[in-house]
């Protein structure tokens, strides 16, 4: 599994501001994958609110999970992803936390 292909960014504090986050390069988030693409979640990026990260995991968006991009609304709208045998719509702000494995 590509889970540890990168040292996990420290994501322990819930008080960081967005600016101080280890900004993942765009290419590494799943937001720019085309419709129909599949990817394995390498890690969940730190989010200013640690609960968001936890919620993504509870929704089945766990590191190691296989995800398919079903649909991308244009102009920065939400995405529909298929994970854990169901479809879920996410805004790009949340989807950008899903980091794609570099294999």
């Amino acid at each position, binding site marked *: 599994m590509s889970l540890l292909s990168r040292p996990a960014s420290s994501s322990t504090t819930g008080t960081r501001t967005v600016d101080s986050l280890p900004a993942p390069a765009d290419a590494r988030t799943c937001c720019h994958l085309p419709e129909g693409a599949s990817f394995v979640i390498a890690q969940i990026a730190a989010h*200013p*609110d640690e*609960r*968001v990260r*936890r*919620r*993504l*995991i*509870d*929704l*089945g968006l*766990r*590191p*190691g*999970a296989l995800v398919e991009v*079903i*649909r991308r*609304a*244009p*102009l*920065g*709208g*939400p995405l*529909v992803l*298929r*994970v*854990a*045998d*169901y*479809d*879920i*719509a*996410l*805004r790009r*702000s*949340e989807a950008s936390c899903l980091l794609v494995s570099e294999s």
Partner: protein
Amino acid sequence: MAHEHHHGGGGTVAAAPGTRRVALVGSPNSGKTTLFNALTGLRAKTGNYPGVTVGRYEGVARTPTGHVVVEDLPGTYSLDPISPDEVVVLETLDPAHADIETPQALLVLLDSTTLRRSLALLAQVLHQGLPSRLVLTFGDELTARGGSLDLPALVRALGIAVDLVTSGDRRALTGLRAELDVADQWPTPTVLPPQDPDQVTGWIESVLSAASYRAPRPDGPTRRIDSVLLHPVAGALVFFVVMFAFFQVIFTVAAPLQGWVESLFGWLGGAAADHIANPWLGSFVSQALIGGVGGVLVFLPQIALLFLMISLMESVGYMSRAAFIMDRVMSRFGLEGRAFVSLLSSMACAIPGIMATRTLPSARDRLSTMMAAPLMTCSARLPVYVLLISMLVPAQTRVGPFGLQGLVMFGLYLLGAVSALLAAAVFQKIGNRSGSGLPFYMEMPPYRMPSARYVLVAVWDACKGFLRKVTHIILVVTILLFLLLNLPTQSVSTMRSAGVDVQDPVATSSYVLEHSYAAAVGRAVEPVFTPLGFDWRINVGVVSSLAAREVFVATMGQVAAAQNPDDPHQALAAMRVEHGPDAGQPLFSPPTVAALLVFFVYALQCMSTVGVLRRETGGWRWPAIAFGYMFTLAWVMAFLVRSVVAVWT
């Protein structure tokens, strides 16, 4: 998408002490509410959890030997709460939290087609240490899409009993009722699942493989329909067609039904007036009692139709698609896509619009949307706008190919919509100061055949709840208004000596009104409204429009003693300012009419809406905030517009 329609009337939620309580825990879309409705029939109660705007639903389920109280907890994806609704679930399950009674046992509902995700919720729930039983829903769908599981093996892997149910399966329901009788003896697993999220993944995989779980294929028809309905162009087009039809149904299909309600109550009122000898009592019964009830019931067809369509759209699965299409626009105002339906419904009437916020999973979004919904231009404003615009703009004035009257009307609708979105954005900002906003995520369930029972229960619930609570408030207000407008009674001799033709009902009612308590109220509030150009007569209309905005038109007719109280345009145009520097000038000057129009755009002149706000938020705080902020906004905006128009004309 939260399926949170329940039937139930009102009143506080309270069960006889000592009755066994079982709570339903599950994700949105797990079929939780459908099972709740099936178990409790039509004996459910709605209320609120202590201190929060989260709806609480409780019902009594018949069991072979007695009764069990069943509580339908808000749908949640996790016990690691991020919204007030989810906090409620956690607090209910926590025996240390004394405010909310902890159930003796839990019925956990999971959608059998999404077990790979939803077992994580079960893992968290089992850690609460309560006797639990698992119900897997949509068993038929699992089979139809090529999935399968070994039920006895799953029971062994989990250590608790599991039922696999399909929709409309009566036998499973009977079995479940029998199980409710012994709910406190349901097992708690001897080996608890792990708590660390990373280990939960492994636990889920091991449970699924132990149960030989074969995941269902993606639903083929859903994929094909979504390729149209979620398409950037086609999907948006379908969305607008659906919304247009939605709006048309609320306006046009409801209109004849509303006409019937109106004529029925008109006939009843007439019959009462004819058959009650005492004229004062007769008009009290016909106008205040029958007219007041009729004035509320006239909204019922709209509410029934609205909930019919909303619950159909939800039951089929279109609601989450519509929300997906609208999400980007709504996100600019801090709202999510689902709030759109509520705001659109408010263009028919704010009451169903506010009730439609029940589809929003987040309590904060619900509040912001409810605070904004009354600013959308409802149909009750229409008669007021028509009257006032006709006094402001001559019918033949045109701007290019468009009539100016229509343009002003359009402008008022636009002003209402923009103001509502901005108000929602402000309330979201204020709410978000206390913490970061909720992440937006929305399950996109496969398209399903609508459940007739679910739809009917949703309609029934909405209508029943509306009638129960609102009739109390509207009745009190209309009775009060009637008394204010008609008291003190004037004797024939007083009127004769004042030179009133006592044979002329229009003249006598105008004399009574002029000397009524309402007139006194109108004069008392003059200091507030004089800067807007309103005199005591307009104030009486404004005060009476609190019952319902369109009452303004009829009241102004009475005040102006028009021959035809339903079209007081002519009589009003002839009214003059009584005193002050402008004495003798037309009372309804362009600045005053413009100020009145803007006042009606913003002011919460509708006690039914206040009543529904109280019902939906479970207290007087939010209705008071709504009334206060909208009145302030109305006054300030009316003053600004009056000043601008005064300079311009």
